[in-house]
């Protein structure tokens, strides 16, 4: 089949995450029994099955509960109401973290010296109260993967809404400045995208409205950003990688279902941790490593292991077993990273539209809410037979969004993280100040894109490791294939992780055992290094160390190689390239397109 096929639907959605879930759930509710037959809606989802490509855990679930009044969310596997919440500041029992002298001083003098007077236990200081902006009381601990599977079943029942996983969208279809639908990716190609046996060009799906809910690194959203630019003063340079495990807790663990723990301070001051307990002795736990953590040779996985080994957490986890594992990028720019929300023929929802609130550390409920708000507007326009123009969508959706809690809370959060660009304490203060003052006060900071901000390895380790030694480590890492960060971390004093093959395992084992990562053949590589000369001269090669799946490695002739079969589509490479794209000072040298495959776990 070699000719490109085309078909037409009323509404096409890109990505099936919480935002599109909210959109479809609300649309299904509103458009039944109207004067017009309901629209025919198709949603295309990249990952191999519903629930594989999403992650999220604890949520106040305000918007979600509003969509399903009377339904007990706890009926979904792994869900439970929030019962206990704690925030803990973790000290450094190992001595290798890069705490500034100020933080070390505070640790030694204030915290340790006064530990008898403070809620100090197992090398951690548990805050006596949970700051209001972090509180999730009344909320739900759930597995978004399981939740999305349930939502999919609900919304597809009528037949008017179809959801197709395993179908990545390559690009929006544009007619002038109007979006008229989407184009699906080609199938039956080699890794470079050239047709081979069984080649099928991606189908064109024309639609009156294209709903873009493809997440923070979604290619359709980013192509629209490229085309239309971001609103004045907005940028998308604040990111984090969230890496998470779903773990079977050991029998001796006394944590109750519904327990929510948040940590900060260890293994590095910038790294935030979380542990949420599901029913049945299962917990979701992990870390957020923000882009402000400017270590050019870092891997979230190793830090995740060190974090688990902190006594405050390890007392609960030792003897546990890994069930599921994954990682995703979070767009922490939030409101400041909001793109143009609507245009002729399209609307943006979810994390890719800047809805994630990094102050409260939540994104699922916000994303869902934006979907619901869009559906309210779309249902109105559909009933009245009005076209999906920018003006109409602005009135029907954007204004609703501006009047919602997503906007209000997003504005507070916008001010919050600015301080972190200038250091951890400033950041914490900034967060606390903004959070506690409802956004009225803030510490300002303006991030730079990674390729302008990241230091070289020599710069980062200046004073700790001589650059001659770093050169030697680089050589070794190239010849014997050991990742550079392993040698660097060891040299910086981080202890080896005692692997037990059950919970503490090698990165590759986590991919297979926890992520069941796969990639079907017949598709092009979705991570592309644009200018190979830039890669060849790049000394830092953060992409190799930062890749959540160890899918990026040094390749032949100084190039960088990508292994699709290990990629979990987290997108970290996108915002961790230390080289600018030729001719474009705003973007790095790595492009992440839509690709098939990835995690095969619906527990995340």
């Amino acid at each position, binding site marked *: *089949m070699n000719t490109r*096929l085309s*078909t037409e639907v009323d509404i096409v959605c890109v990505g099936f995450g919480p935002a599109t879930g909210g959109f479809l759930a609300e649309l299904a509710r509103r458009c039944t029994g109207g004067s017009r037959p309901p629209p025919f809606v*198709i949603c295309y989802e990249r990952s*191999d*099955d*519903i*629930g*594989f490509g999403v992650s999220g855990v604890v949520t106040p679930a305000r918007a979600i509960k509003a969509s399903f009044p009377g339904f007990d969310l706890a009926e979904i*596997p*792994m869900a439970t109401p929030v019962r206990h919440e704690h925030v803990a500041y973790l000290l450094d029992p190992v001595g290798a973290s890069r705490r500034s002298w100020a933080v070390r001083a505070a640790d030694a003098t204030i915290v340790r010296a006064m530990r008898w007077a403070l809620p100090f236990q197992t090398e951690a200081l548990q805050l006596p109260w949970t700051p209001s902006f972090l509180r999730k009381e009344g909320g739900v601990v759930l597995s978004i993967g*399981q939740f999305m*599977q349930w939502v*999919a*079943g609900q919304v*597809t*029942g*009528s*037949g008017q809404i*179809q*959801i*197709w*996983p*395993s*179908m990545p969208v390559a690009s929006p279809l544009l007619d002038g400045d109007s979006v008229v639908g989407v184009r*699906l990716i080609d*199938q*039956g190609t080699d890794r470079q995208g050239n047709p081979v*046996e*069984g080649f*099928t060009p991606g*189908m064109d*799906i024309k639609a009156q409205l294209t709903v873009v809910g493809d997440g923070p690194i979604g290619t359709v959203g980013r192509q629209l950003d490229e085309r239309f630019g971001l609103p004045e003063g907005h940028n998308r340079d604040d990111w984090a990688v969230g890496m998470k495990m779903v773990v079977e807790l050991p029998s001796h663990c006394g944590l109750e279902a519904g327990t929510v723990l948040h940590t900060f301070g260890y293994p590095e001051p910038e790294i935030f941790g979380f542990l949420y307990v599901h029913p049945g002795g299962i917990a979701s736990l992990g870390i957020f490593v923000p882009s402000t953590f400017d270590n050019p040779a870092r891997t979230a996985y190793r830090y995740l292991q060190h974090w688990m080994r902190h006594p405050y957490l390890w007392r609960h986890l030792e003897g546990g077993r890994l*069930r599921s594992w994954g990682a995703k990028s979070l767009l922490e720019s939030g409101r400041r990273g909001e793109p143009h929300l609507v245009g002729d023929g399209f609307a943006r929802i979810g994390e890719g539209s800047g809805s994630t609130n990094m102050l409260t550390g939540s994104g699922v409920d916000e994303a869902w809410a934006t979907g619901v708000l869009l559906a309210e507007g779309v249902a109105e326009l559909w009933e009245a037979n009005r076209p999906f123009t920018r003006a109409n969508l602005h009135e029907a959706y954007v204004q609703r969004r501006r009047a919602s809690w997503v906007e209000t809370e997003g504005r507070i959060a916008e001010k919050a993280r600015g301080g972190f660009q200038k250091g951890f304490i400033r950041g914490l203060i900034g967060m606390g100040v903004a959070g506690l003052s409802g956004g009225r006060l803030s510490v300002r900071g303006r991030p730079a894109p990674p390729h302008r901000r990241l230091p070289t390895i020599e710069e980062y380790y200046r004073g700790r490791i001589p650059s001659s030694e770093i050169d030697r480590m680089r050589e070794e890492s190239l010849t014997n294939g050991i990742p550079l960060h392993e040698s660097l971390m060891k040299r910086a004093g981080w202890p080896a992780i005692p692997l037990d093959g059950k919970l503490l395992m090698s990165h590759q084992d986590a991919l*297979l*055992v926890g992520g*069941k990562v*796969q990639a*079907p053949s*017949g598709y092009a590589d979705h991570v592309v290094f644009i200018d190979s000369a830039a890669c060849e001269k790049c000394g830092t090669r953060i992409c190799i160390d930062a890749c959540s799946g160890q899918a990026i490695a040094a390749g032949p002739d100084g190039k960088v190689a990508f292994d699709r079969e290990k990629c979990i589509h987290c997108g970290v490479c996108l915002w961790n390239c230390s080289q600018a794209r030729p001719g474009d000072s705003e973007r790095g040298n790595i492009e992440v397109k839509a690709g098939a495959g990835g995690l*095969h*776990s*619906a*527990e995340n």
Partner: protein
Amino acid sequence: MDTPFQIVVCAGLVPDPLQTLEPAAGPAGPVLKNEMMLPLVIDPWAAHALFEAAALAKRFPGSKVWLVSLAPRAKLQQVMMTVAQKAAFELVALDSPAGGFTESAEIAAEIAAAIERLPGIDKSRLLVFGGWESASRGTGTTLQTVGERLGIFEQFQGVDRLDMAPDGAFQVIERIEGGRHQASACSGLPAVFGWATGELPEPPNNPQIGMANMRTVMPALNRARPVKIANEGLSFARVTAPNQRRDTKIIKDMAPGQIAREIVDWIGPEQ
């Protein structure tokens, strides 16, 4: 309407192959731990049978493909989202918790009854396809029993290729011992085919096929008959996930030459 061939594909759902499985006690016998949370796929060999059915139907225009599946309804709905993009078929759904520990003979009875009920079914043009054994129960007996109940006594298992003539005569090869195939010729239908991998690659996802399929899939799911499998007379004395853990000797820093010598000694003389 005169349909050249009628191909009924029987397919169950099995856990996604990489999942870690553990047994658990269910109310009516053993089940998988967290069974409802495991990602499910259509049984791999049955999927090959479906692709072969689609290819055959394409070769003989006017032919019709049904997919008969006995599985939990909600799970079937979800699996359809991936399968329905691959091949055109009409779904016949039977709603039942089915898995590796459910009785093959009883499942076969339900499937055969569902096939008999298909409107316009013409045994002289009928091919019953399936996987030769499933990735759940793995007995390779369900299809034969379906055939028996339908009065079909020409049956082939481990099929890798089927060459069909327009009049219903065909040639077929089946896997036998030692990596070889047995070739047979048959003068007419009906017949049962339990497929191995066949020779076709997995078809690409086709949105048009998907959309067309979904128009009948959702109504079929809504109509799905709830079915109870009794597992009459069947009991399990013990179900375990054997953990063969050996005391692995890990040898590092040995030169390849030395390793090679050890391996060659271990292999022993040529047989």
